[in-house]
């Protein structure tokens, strides 16, 4: 009985903390605990040394998100609901005492080659220690040759690493309805390969969303005009991404130190 009371108290506290973290804004839905992904999707030998260093020495973390349409949600509240903003929130609540600054550069329909063109300016402006680069979908849509895609991506990752930032490559969304019209697997293979070659982390959004669909977390076949599902999927992506960053940069220990 005491155990039950303790759980109630703990969840009430957690709820309060969450409300505080999100600026006191009332939330319509509880955080989707059910969208947790197995650790195997997020684990890797690859680390994020620049992130670890910036958090440990400067107590701050500068992140740039570069991506195309699937890094945003349309609509008036889209920017706040899309995964970049939600990632910033998630990191702020998990890394108390660390100043988080996330800048999103969403370029709808930009191919990877076009995104590489803008890298210099983004790296100079944001001075990030971590770049999350979502790519592949628009290249698949415009039928860019996989070989060209690979070269652009490789060049971009090298450029980011040379600017002393860690890289997380994020691949496509799993989109079962368009799967028979848009084959993204070749591009996903290229991304995996470039990540491996350049020792960059891969956030396997394709596999994770596939897992959610198979596990029944989301029915990604659903046709809807509402934004609920988009918002929840982005929230879950942000959560998974946050835990990947915290794991790979070993920030659990850091958080302990700063809050102690």
């Amino acid at each position, binding site marked *: 009985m005491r155990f039950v009371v303790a759980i109630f108290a703990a969840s009430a506290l957690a709820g309060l903390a969450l409300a505080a973290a999100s600026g006191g804004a009332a939330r319509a839905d509880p955080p989707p605990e059910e969208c947790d992904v197995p650790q195997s999707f997020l684990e890797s030998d690859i680390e994020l040394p620049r992130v670890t260093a910036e958090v440990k020495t400067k107590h701050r973390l500068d992140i740039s998100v570069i991506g195309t*349409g699937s890094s945003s949600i*349309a609509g008036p509240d889209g920017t706040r609901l899309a995964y970049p903003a939600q990632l910033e929130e998630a990191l702020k609540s998990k890394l108390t005492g660390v100043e988080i600054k996330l800048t999103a550069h969403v370029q709808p329909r930009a191919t990877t080659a076009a995104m590489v063109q803008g890298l210099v300016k983004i790296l100079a402006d944001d001075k990030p220690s971590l770049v999350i680069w979502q790519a592949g979908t628009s290249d698949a849509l415009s039928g860019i040759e996989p070989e060209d895609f690979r070269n652009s991506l490789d060049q971009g990752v090298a450029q980011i690493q040379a600017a002393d930032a860690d890289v997380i490559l994020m691949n496509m969304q799993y989109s079962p309805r368009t799967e028979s019209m848009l084959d993204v697997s070749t591009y996903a293979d290229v991304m995996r390969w470039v990540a491996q070659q350049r020792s960059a982390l891969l956030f396997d959004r394709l596999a994770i969303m596939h897992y959610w669909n198979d596990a029944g977390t989301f029915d990604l076949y659903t046709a809807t*005009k509402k934004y609920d599902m988009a918002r929840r999927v982005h929230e879950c992506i942000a959560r998974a991404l946050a835990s990947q960053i915290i794991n790979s940069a070993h920030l659990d220990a850091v958080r302990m130190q700063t809050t102690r």
Partner: protein
Amino acid sequence: MLVTPIATAPALPVIATERDLRLDLFRGVALWLIFLDHIPGNILNWFTIRNYGFSDATEIFIFISGYTAAFVYGRAMHERGLVIASARILRRAWQIYVAHIFLFTIFMAEIAYVAATFDNPLYAEEMNILDFLKQPDVTIFQALLLKFKPVNMDVLPLYIVLLLLFPPMLWMLLRQPGFALAGSALVYVLAWNFDWNLPAYPNGVWFFNPFAWQLLFVFGAWCALGGAQRLSYLLRSRYVMALAIGYLIFAFAITLTWYIEPLARFVPQWLSDWMYPIDKTNLDVLRFAHFLALAAVTVRFIPRDWPGLKSPFLQPAIVCGQHSLEIFCLGVFLAFAGQFIISEWSGGPVVQSLISLAGILIMVATAKLISWYKYIEGRSPTSRVKTPDADLAGGGA
């Protein structure tokens, strides 16, 4: 080993006389595998060979089609001359073109349906793929030119090009087989060096580069026209067999590392630098070698007169392989339909398995029906009344 010589003028190369059931069997199996691979996310994909090595069903299919094309048209060219044989080859290319446009129509219907019924803000970016519906004039015209090819519809255009170029190649193969094969290999090398490929719409190039894949087709044809016999001493060699099996094991081990991430660290850096990417578009040499190894092992362990070929259990695959153009098209259509059912109702593993199984049964039943039609019209592939039918790659309709 693969072929039996016929008594002809001594100057001409030996051409196989009897239908080799192994070709039908493996082409039938390849058709099933292509069907399974074309249903995305299908649990039965795990049974298809692309998960166990570098090459996949496409290689088997192209090779066998080259083999049967040479088998059928080689004899036609020998007996009735260049013009008649060429005319028959070009008629076959035309039939495949019509089949391709038929499939394209079904594809357009599916796309139009999805465009009209599916909406989800989550997929705003992916739905841009439907943009081409806004310009049906351009899209359909590009499809007729074989430049616009939707997903999974790349194989037939490749065939059309291979067949269009086949008459001179066959003419050369009948006179100077070694020279013809060397020429084909040269085109392959040049295509790699100079990035030769055909343009696609709206961007990019053909998914199956005809300048690269022709090597497999011509190699199949070369084998049918006596090449296999010349290779038979190699196939009997214990060292070759050890090499082939060793390479298959190596490819299997590498493929495992794609699916079991932690194993990837056992692949040395120099090896992955050298090996990756394994290019399907340009028929990577590793894929070609994998197919050769697979073929060498298969031919060794399944001889031409293997009694199993008469077994009723293998008849379903054999009959599918005997009508490959029809069954290939049906397979593409069934993959569309299967995927449609999965997305409209349910996508569980049980449903996927049932749909896959039902698809294969429909393919077999249709193939048997076509056989029956040919039988009542006196053109059964086993009857000797008329010329044998090589289907996708050859034969009269």
